[in-house]
């Protein structure tokens, strides 16, 4: 009993978030015109859960008979997802009203997906991991199609669902094969006999299938086909949440299983990861060049960024884990900000998501344009912004582990990316639009954007603020 209480306390951020999502749906069911109440309850609850995650941070270990991680890594990832959820909710308040999906379920589903993300990336038992993955994915399928009358949204939801279900199938089959070989689903136990298992073809097949599932969820080439369509069709803030929270969650689970636990450095699996990394960086960046829609551009850019992070997974070791985590945090701030501004443009300004809709933004909303440039420059990887430092850290890890050639491909593809990120800056600053009218901005959105921009700048200039926490992950 006492053990149960301790374990519950240590996993409090996960429990707290699911409780919160239930409270929100209850408010929605019991009270009329409850949107404002749900909004505030969600925000306060998220803040409380972040505090919980900080409090349990020092208790590094596992709970519930080694099924989930607690403290350290789990806390940091929990804070990452909760922050992403909080920023998404702040930016969504006005947005969902404008696109006519101001249902209470929106907040509920975001919170449910957040719970799934936390479970997904903290699970040390493949079954728990899978439950987390499904909880996250199913919530996101619904969110993708929440704009019911919007046929692109429906298409996105269906596509995401069908391909996602397919990927889940791979994932589950992989778990089954691994279980068949090792008679356990606990990754810590499997890791103890890794050497012996690595020569078993069936085990390798299982790991390979897991890899396919992960590659799908992080949006790595060649499992990336869904990304542009889903990001484009889903409501913009949902895309923001998917590209940051869901991607980060898949990556952190990926890291936990493949790099931190299985430690696959120097095996054949590593070669596969390197190929995925190269393909993602090249295809993501090259195809992004020809995109005219900001959401599709960000989608291809997110494929490319998955490639950079896969360099870290290929390199392996503690340094890579820290590097990828840092990258995910910086990417979360950057991308939520960029999508958030895209959402404002979509609703406030000329009502489109084409890059041309940003024309002359600087002359109407200088602050928005400056922040968007910060996000774009951070995605390019320009110092002293967070995106640069994430890349730098991953490159250091890769070079120290003998993957200099991967970093060279990384920088060459970064050069390509400069062009399409700059294009956004060009239309905002160097072109003018006489017809567009200046509109007012919701204070909640501005607040969230300021937080994101401050995050990008602060952890870029003072990365130690985040790195110091990461010296105590496991």
């Amino acid at each position, binding site marked *: 009993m006492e053990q149960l209480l301790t374990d519950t306390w240590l996993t409090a951020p996960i429990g707290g978030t699911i409780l919160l999502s239930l409270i929100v749906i209850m408010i929605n069911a019991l009270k009329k015109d409850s949107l404002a109440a749900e909004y505030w309850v969600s925000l306060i609850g998220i803040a409380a859960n972040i505090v919980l995650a900080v409090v349990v941070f020092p208790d590094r270990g596992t709970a519930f008979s080694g099924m989930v991680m607690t403290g350290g890594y789990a806390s940091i990832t929990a804070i990452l997802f909760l922050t992403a959820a909080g920023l998404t909710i702040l930016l969504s308040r006005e947005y969902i009203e404008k696109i006519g999906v101001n249902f209470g379920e929106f907040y509920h589903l975001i919170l449910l997906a957040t719970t799934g993300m936390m479970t997904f990336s903290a699970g040390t038992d493949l079954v728990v991991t899978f439950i987390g993955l499904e909880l996250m994915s199913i919530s996101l399928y619904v969110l993708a199609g929440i704009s019911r009358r919007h046929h692109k949204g429906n298409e996105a939801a269906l596509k995401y669902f069908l391909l996602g279900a397919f990927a889940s199938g791979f994932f589950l089959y992989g778990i089954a094969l691994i279980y068949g070989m090792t008679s356990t689903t606990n990754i810590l136990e499997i890791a103890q006999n890794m050497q012996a298992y690595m020569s078993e073809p069936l085990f390798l097949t299982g790991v390979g299938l897991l890899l396919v599932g992960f590659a799908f969820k992080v949006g790595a080439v060649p499992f990336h086909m869904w990304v542009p369509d889903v990001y484009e069709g889903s409501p913009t803030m949902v895309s923001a949440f998917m590209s940051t929270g869901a991607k980060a969650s898949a990556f952190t689970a990926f890291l936990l299983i493949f790099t931190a636990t299985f430690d696959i450095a120097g095996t054949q699996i590593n070669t596969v990861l390197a190929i995925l990394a190269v393909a993602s960086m090249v295809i993501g960046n090259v195809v992004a060049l020809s995109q005219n829609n900001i959401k599709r551009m960000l989608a291809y850019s997110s494929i490319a960024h998955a490639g950079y992070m896969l360099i870290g997974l290929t390199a392996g070791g503690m340094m890579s884990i820290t590097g990828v985590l840092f990258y995910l945090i910086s990417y979360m701030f950057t991308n939520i900000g960029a999508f958030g501004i895209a959402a404002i443009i979509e609703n406030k300004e000329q009502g489109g998501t084409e890059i041309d809709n940003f024309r002359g933004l600087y002359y109407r909303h200088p602050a928005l344009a400056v922040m968007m440039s910060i996000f774009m420059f951070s995605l390019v990887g320009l110092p*002293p912004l967070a995106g640069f430092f994430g890349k730098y850290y991953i490159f250091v890890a890769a070079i120290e582990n003998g993957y200099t050639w991967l970093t060279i491909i990384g920088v060459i593809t970064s050069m390509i990316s400069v062009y399409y990120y700059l294009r956004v800056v060009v239309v905002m600053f160097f072109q003018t639009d006489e017809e567009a009218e200046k509109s007012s901005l919701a204070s909640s959105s501005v607040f969230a954007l300021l937080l994101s921009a401050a995050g990008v700048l602060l952890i870029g200039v003072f990365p130690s603020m985040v*790195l110091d926490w990461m010296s105590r992950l496991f």
Partner: protein
Amino acid sequence: MIPHVLNVVLFLPLIGMAAVLLARRSDNAARWTGLITSLLTFVVSLELFFSYDAANPAMQFVEKVSWISALNVSYHVGLDGISMLLVVLTTFLTPIVLISSWNSIAKQVPAYVALMLLLETAMIGVFSSLDTFLFYVFWEMILVPMYFIIGIWGGKERIYATVKFFIYTMVGSLLMLIAIIWLGYYASTLPGGEFTTDIIKLFDIAPTIPLDIQSWMFAAFALSFLIKVPAFPLHTWLPDAHVQAPTGGSVILAGVLLKMGTYGLIRFNLQFFPQASLEFASFLSALGVVGIIYGALVSMVQKDVKKLVAYSSVSHMGFILLGIFGVTVEGLQGGLIQMINHGLSTGALFLLVGMIYDRRHTRMIADFGGLARQIPVFSTFFMIVTLSSIGLPGLNGFVGEFLVLLGSFNSPVLDSPWYVIFAATGVVFAAVYMLWMFQRVVFGVSRSEENKKLTDLTTREIGLLLPVILFIVWIGVYPFTFLQKSEPTIQRVVEKLEQVQRGELLSTTVSDQ
């Protein structure tokens, strides 16, 4: 004595930038805040010049604070004889640029001033960084303000020019980033070593890299710097950027930004990779010579004065390249003084072109003529600067070019008089294109009625040109004031290379300080 004087110089413009952004309601407030900040920075930086101890070739005014402990990165800055002069050149040119843009920049004034001040901090940072990570941060920070300055206040083709500028620079610097990381990693593989980006430590560590890898490292750094210089054939971004940039942008670009390339070649390529430097010296000197002649020939056929000045930069920067890779004290001293000369002369030329453009809204040589009678003060200044750019004895250009040619002639590394023979033709060509342009613009008869309406320079314009002219004459007559500051530093650089050439430094053990 000002405590932490280098920190003050480095961050004063940044504080000014914050002030400008806070007071962005009024254009004039922004102009004045910017001017006062940059003048203050200049005054403080004089302290750097005067209290710099020339007898001591080590880094001075050093500041070191741990920054990112996980990667052993520190905020580490300091100056030696080379960088100190370039820092002072930067702080000297910035207020001049701000005054020159007083009226010609009419829209988005606070943003312009803020970007200029940000640029100033970044430029000073590039020259004073003693940590490769910090250097890279400042190096890339240059890009953003320059990108906006060309893109917002530039001419018709500004978007093409600014994107080209950005991408060219990024291409070079990203490979340099890999080399920077690899150097740190190499340090960690040595016995008792750790990952480091400290330039002072790398001065000892980097030369021990085996030659085959050293050549790759050298190439990665050199590509980045040669693009910035710009050396033929990587120069094509320069004419576009110069022609499209507003006057202030051109002055900063020619005056300081190009020097970052040649500075980097001395600081990193020569000092980190002495063996590879010797291997590549003839190739890079040859590139320099090609640049001298190519730049001069292309200048000759230009119809646009600004474009002519831009191509003449390619030619002048070729001299600096030749001076650096002759690897002699005279050549390097000449290269360094030529960096400053080029900053002054070409900067002044761009200022003058900008002044005439503000009045006439054209820069075509064919549109002018007979300006000597119409605007004599302008013509006088124009003549002094033109002669300085040609390298007339008594003015600054001569000192630099002479030292470079002397140094390369005596160079044991190049060991051939042909470099100098070809480079010297560049001096002749320079006289041809500059004087021919000058003659068509200033003398003869006016080819347009509009020239009759031209007004001569205002007090503000004369005021901002005079200090430049002062230094043009000063360096021409008594260069010792500046040369003595940098000589011990440069001597040390050359000595180390000579040791390597004699094969003495190959088995250095790494001193862990």
